[in-house]
């Protein structure tokens, strides 16, 4: 398979996986509201990565989503980054964003999380969502670079930092 086709396949599969992941977040409360027992399995899949506290989660159909507000923001931010990716850089590149970009986009979430952790302040779910969303937008640019490095392997274009 040609490199471009491979790169598009990697991007397409990652986008499909992201959409499936997000759909599952919404499916969990829906199934619970309908009394379908499969909802327990979905909640347990996300349990290793999130505290799933109802008070810190958005609710749909009267039940909390499968992850908290911050994680929902991260995953939706990831989707936003995925959708923006083809407009910002060529699909298939292996180079990664600058460290400074990562630090700047991580800062709001880090500050918010630390403030909450040490009881300096207590932010609501919307702010947690927003800081998570901002951080999530940068993640696909790393994730796709890694997948391209493993599965596409562009000769002469691998590296650690974008221009």
């Amino acid at each position, binding site marked *: 398979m040609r490199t471009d086709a491979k790169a598009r396949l990697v991007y397409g599969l990652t986008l499909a996986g992201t959409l499936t992941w997000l759909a599952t977040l919404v499916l969990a409360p829906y199934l619970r509201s309908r009394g379908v027992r499969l909802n327990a399995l979905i909640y347990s899949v996300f349990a290793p*990565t999130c505290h799933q506290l109802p008070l810190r989660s958005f609710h749909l159909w009267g039940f909390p989503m499968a992850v908290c507000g911050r994680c929902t923001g991260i995953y939706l931010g990831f989707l936003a980054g995925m959708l923006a990716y083809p407009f910002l850089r060529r699909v298939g590149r292996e180079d990664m964003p600058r460290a400074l970009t*990562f630090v700047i986009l991580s800062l709001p979430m880090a500050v918010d999380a630390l403030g909450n952790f040490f009881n300096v302040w207590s932010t609501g779910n919307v702010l947690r969502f927003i800081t998570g969303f901002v951080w999530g937008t940068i993640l696909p640019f790393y994730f796709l670079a*890694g997948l391209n*490095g493993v599965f596409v392997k562009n000769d002469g274009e691998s590296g650690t930092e974008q221009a």
Partner: protein
Amino acid sequence: MNQQQKPGLLVPALIGGAVAGVLSGIPLLGCLCCLWIIGGALLAASLAAKDYVVSMTAGDGAVLGALVGIVAAVVDSLVGLPLQSLNLQLMQRFMERISEFSSELPGNWRDLMQQGVNNNSIAFFLLDLVIKAVVFVALGALGGIIGASLFGKKTAPAAGPQAGGGPDVPKDPSHS
């Protein structure tokens, strides 16, 4: 990059995975589970980067992070076994506090929690392990790639035919 120039990834992956797995398996600390896995992969990448004479690629970071995720899933599951009763006590206390403020909890939540603990067959353990492994591999890969970006960059020599060129230029001039 020449394969011979790539150092082994297994030892950093074992260290990063063990740290992430232990921390994510401990009650209370486990609330930051997602960050522990990413943090473990960052640690592994920083350790592996020391042995690289050239820049770590995103692919190297992804493979390293995926290994960290597998190790962390196994360690987390093993650490969770002896700590399960402690986890249950902490969770019960937490749920009691939550139930004071929320009417969402089912009336028999104590029975349901106990039932969950009693369902500790090998099949449940393995299912839990597989689910964790899949999720942790994805998170670990992400952490490994970010780690490669943050710690794996080697600057090219100031002078030389490839100065200012691609990041795969060896740090040690003897390799050029």
